[in-house]
C-alpha cells in the first residue's frame, strides 16, 4: 500500500518535469484569464455608463455649494486659530478594484492626523475605516458604510450629518475627499468647514442683514457641513468611478496580452505534443520492419 503511494508521488513529480503535461494547465489558465477579462470588461462598461451620471451629480453639487462659499468669502469667515477639538471626516466608499483611490485617501488621512494630532476621525466608507483602524484605531469615533454604491444623494449626506452632530461640537471640521480633476486623475483634498462660532465671528458679517432670532447662522453652519459632505461624496464617487474605469481598462488590456501569450504557448505546446507522438508512432512502425 505504502509502496503504491510512493510510486504515485514519484510519478506525479516526474510528470511535472515533463513538458507536455502542462498543456492541460495552460488550457485551464487560458480559460480563467478569458473569464477574468470578461469580468473586467463588464466592470469597465458599467463604470463608463455610471460616469456620466456621476459627473452630472458632481457638477450640480458644486454649483449648490458655491452659494455657501460665496457667502463665506464675502463675510471673510476664518477658521479659529489654535483650536483643539478637531474632527476629520474622510470620505471614500466600500468597494475596491479602483486603483489607488482608497490608499491615497489613507495617506491623506495620515498626513492630516500629523497636522492635527488631537483630532478625532469619522470614516465614511469601509475602505477608509479599515485603513484608519490599522494606523490610528484609537482616534476613530464614528464610521459609516453602505454609501457610494449609487450616485450620492443629499438625503444620505443629511442622515450622516444627523449622526455626526451627536458627537458634540467641534471647533474645526476638516472634510477629506478625492477631488475629481479629470477623467484620468484625482486629487485627495481637504475642505475646512466653518462652525457656527466661526461664522458668528467673521469680520465682515455685518455686510449681511441677518435676522439671528431664527437661528440662521446655526442652520447655515449645519447646511454648510451637509453640503461639504455631499459635495465630497459626489466628487469622491465620480473619482472612484473614473478610477475604476481606468483600472478595469488596464486590467482588460493586460488580460488581453496574457491571452495572446498563452494562446501562442498553448498552440506551440500542442504542436510539440503532436510532433512527439508522430515521432513515437513512426519510430515504432519503423522498428517493426
Amino acid at each position, binding site marked *: 500500500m505504502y509502496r503504491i503511494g510512493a510510486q504515485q508521488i514519484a510519478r506525479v513529480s516526474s510528470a511535472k518535469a515533463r513538458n507536455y503535461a502542462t498543456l492541460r494547465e495552460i488550457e485551464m489558465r487560458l480559460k480563467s484569464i478569458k473569464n477574468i477579462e470578461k469580468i473586467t470588461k463588464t466592470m469597465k462598461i458599467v463604470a463608463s455608463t455610471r460616469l456620466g451620471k456621476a459627473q452630472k*451629480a458632481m*457638477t*450640480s*453639487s458644486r*454649483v*449648490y455649494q*458655491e*452659494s*455657501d462659499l*460665496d*457667502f463665506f468669502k*464675502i463675510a471673510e469667515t476664518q477658521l479659529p486659530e489654535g483650536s483643539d477639538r478637531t474632527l476629520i471626516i474622510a470620505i471614500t466608499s466600500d468597494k475596491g478594484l479602483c486603483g489607488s483611490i482608497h490608499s491615497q485617501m489613507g495617506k491623506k488621512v495620515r498626513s492630516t492626523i500629523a497636522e492635527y494630532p488631537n483630532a478625532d476621525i469619522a470614516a465614511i466608507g469601509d475602505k477608509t475605516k479599515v485603513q484608519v483602524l490599522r494606523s490610528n484605531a484609537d482616534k476613530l469615533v464614528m464610521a459609516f458604510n453602505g454609501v457610494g454604491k449609487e450616485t450620492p*444623494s*443629499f438625503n444620505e*449626506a443629511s442622515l450622516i450629518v444627523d449622526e455626526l452632530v451627536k458627537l458634540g461640537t467641534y471647533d474645526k471640521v476638516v472634510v477629506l475627499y478625492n477631488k475629481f480633476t479629470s477623467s484620468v486623475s484625482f486629487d485627495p483634498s481637504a475642505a475646512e468647514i466653518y462652525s457656527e462660532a466661526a461664522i458668528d465671528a467673521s469680520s465682515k458679517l455685518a*455686510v*449681511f*442683514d*441677518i*435676522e439671528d432670532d*431664527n437661528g*440662521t447662522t446655526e*442652520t*447655515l453652519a449645519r*447646511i454648510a457641513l451637509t*453640503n461639504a459632505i*455631499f459635495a465630497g461624496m459626489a466628487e469622491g464617487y465620480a473619482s472612484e468611478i473614473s478610477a475604476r474605469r481606468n483600472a478595469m481598462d488596464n486590467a482588460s488590456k493586460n488580460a488581453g496580452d496574457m491571452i495572446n501569450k498563452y494562446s501562442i504557448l498553448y498552440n506551440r505546446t500542442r504542436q510539440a505534443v503532436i510532433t512527439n507522438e508522430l515521432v513515437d508512432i513512426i519510430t515504432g512502425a519503423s522498428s517493426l520492419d
Partner: protein
Amino acid sequence: MFRQTIRAVSKVNRVNAVRTYAEAASSLKLSFSMPHDTIFTNKEVTQVNVPALSGDMGILANHVPIVEQLKPGVVEILEGSNSSKFFISGGFVSVLPDSKISITSVEAFPLDAFDKSSVKTLLAEAQKNAASSDELVAAEASIEVEVLEALNTALP
C-alpha cells in the same frame, strides 16, 4: 492742457456718483440650485419673490445683502413681464453685494407640475398621522402637513 484733464476727470467722477435710472433698473443675477440639479445659473432677472422664514419678500436689484432661511412655499421669478413659479421645500436665499442672488433648496418643482387633488388626499392623510401616538410618525407627519398646507394654498 491740465485743466482739460481735470475737467475730464471730474466729469468721470460725476457720472460715477450719480446713480442713473438705467443702473437702478439693472437686473439681478439669479442662481437657483438643488443638490442634484441646477435650475438657473447667473440668469438675469428683474425680481424674485421668496418665502422667507421672517415673511414673504420681494427682491429687486441692488438689494441690501442678506442671508435668509426659506420655508416651504413659492418662489416667483419675474423677468420683464414673464413670471415663473416654483414650489420649494425650504432652503436658503442669499443676496450678495453685487446683485447676485442665490437660492438653494433641497427640492424644487414648477408649480404647474403639482396635482391639486392628490395634494389634498396626501394632506388629509398627513393630518391623520400627525395625531399619531408614535412620536416619530407624528413629527414626520407634522412636517408633511406644513409643506402640504403651503402647497395647497399656493395652488390655484
